């Protein structure tokens, strides 16, 4: 859905197109199916009870959050390498949407933790590294949204974005080691892996599809919005040059 076709390189002219209308429709339908299966048709889990339903949102959200980070790093690399504004905006859109899904992951994780662990927060390896991921993304966005010229913001953000995935990997690794030296990662120990089957598995599958479609729809729209914003800003260069030259006529009067 975000693959680069020749027409898109020249840039969109509106945030809406037939493809994204279909994409948005499919996202809504799949969300409806997810609600049906996730909240109504699938059974409660033997050990976790009703709390297991949070997983159908939580796990897909975490996955697409990482996907957004990859988009940011890839976009940043291509921007630095080929000065492609198209890819710079893909990187920006990726980071913003990834931030949204990281927050959803954290909130759902904490809501799941309350009934399961009895507290909202434990220093679980995955939860901790997700919190670090959010901080890394906020750092990127802080640079990207600096009150400065586009070139300045874009180039500095691209260096941060380039290092985003390596940083995420290193942070994850270190947090995993840090926890596993002391205790087993709780999420894994209380495990979901072995017990998923039947309708629960189908619900999780539906969750992946629905969240991926929402992710794609958000990326495309965020990208188009950013693109159009930049177009508006860079329009009128010819006019600006003409105005600048007109100053010369005034200046001629003075020696």
């Amino acid at each position, binding site marked *: 859905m975000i693959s680069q076709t020749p027409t898109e390189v020249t840039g969109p002219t509106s945030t809406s197109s037939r493809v994204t209308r279909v994409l948005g429709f499919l996202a809504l339908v799949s969300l409806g199916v997810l609600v049906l299966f996730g909240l109504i048709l699938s059974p409660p889990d033997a050990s976790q009870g009703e709390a297991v339903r949070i997983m159908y949102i939580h796990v897909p959200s975490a996955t697409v959050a990482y996907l957004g980070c990859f988009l940011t790093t890839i976009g940043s690399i291509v921007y630095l390498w080929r000065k492609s504004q198209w890819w710079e905006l893909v990187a920006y859109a990726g980071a913003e949407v990834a931030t949204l899904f990281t927050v959803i992951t954290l909130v759902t994780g904490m809501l799941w933790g309350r009934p399961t662990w009895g507290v909202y927060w434990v220093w679980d390896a995955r939860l901790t590294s997700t919190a670090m991921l959010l901080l890394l993304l906020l750092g990127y966005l802080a640079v990207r949204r600096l009150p400065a*010229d586009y070139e300045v913001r874009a180039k500095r953000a691209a260096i941060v974005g380039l290092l985003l995935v390596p940083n995420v990997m290193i942070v994850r690794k270190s947090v995993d080691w840090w926890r596993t030296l002391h205790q087993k990662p709780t999420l894994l120990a209380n495990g979901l892996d072995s017990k998923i089957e039947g309708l629960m598995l189908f619900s999780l599958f539906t969750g992946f599809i629905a969240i991926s479609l929402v992710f794609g729809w958000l990326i495309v729209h965020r990208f188009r919005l950013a693109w159009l914003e930049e177009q508006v800003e*860079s329009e009128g260069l010819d006019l600006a040059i003409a105005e*600048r030259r007109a*100053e*010369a006529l005034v*200046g001629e009067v*003075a020696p």
Partner: protein
Amino acid sequence: MDAVDPNSFSGPSADPSAGALSGDGVSGDGVTEQRVVHLRGAVALLGRFPALAGVDLDINRRRIVLLRGPNGAGKTTLLRTLAGLVHVSEGEAVVLGVDLLTDRRSVRQRVGLLAHTTGLYDELTVADNVSFWSRAARADRSDVDAAMARLGLDGRLRTVPVGRLSAGQRRRTSLACLIARRPELWLLDEPHAGLDQEGRDLVDQLLREATDAGATVILSSHELDRSLQLADEVVTLSGGVATRDS
């Protein structure tokens, strides 16, 4: 012209045997060894503001060119553009045979820019500053000492932190950094500002020596009486475009 006074620091480090140039290098539209600056419709943006709105300018070697124009006319931007600091987004721009649209870096080491801002480190002494910037440009150590002496920065002044200098002394320090590099193209943004009578005379003398040794000088100045006397050519900049006075 090849007999450069050894005590002069004005000559470019690599003098491309000017005497060997045959014919009139200025004819035609192309870039010759005689032509140091060649701009055609050059546009330079500061953010989204076209500070240079299509400048046409040709300057030959060993000339002293005065840029004049009202505040905000683009004089500083033009000098920074020629130094390879500002990106040229449209038009043609060739400086010292280097196309600025494709390569801005290699021209930088060959020009000397005296800007309003000094770039000096306030907490380091005069000698430390001149020595750091000159060694960065791979200047000879003997040139560094001689440059400081030439600008009157010897004796007690050498060990004074730059932060405690007067504006005129700072300017002298910047000039010492500049002449120790022996640039081929001198770009001076109001070099007379802040200097005393003796200092201004010294600047003029340095510029004449520089052109005698084969360098080219472009300066902006509001001291028109002094500069008109010095300059071979005058270019008026206004509204981001240049016109040549005959």
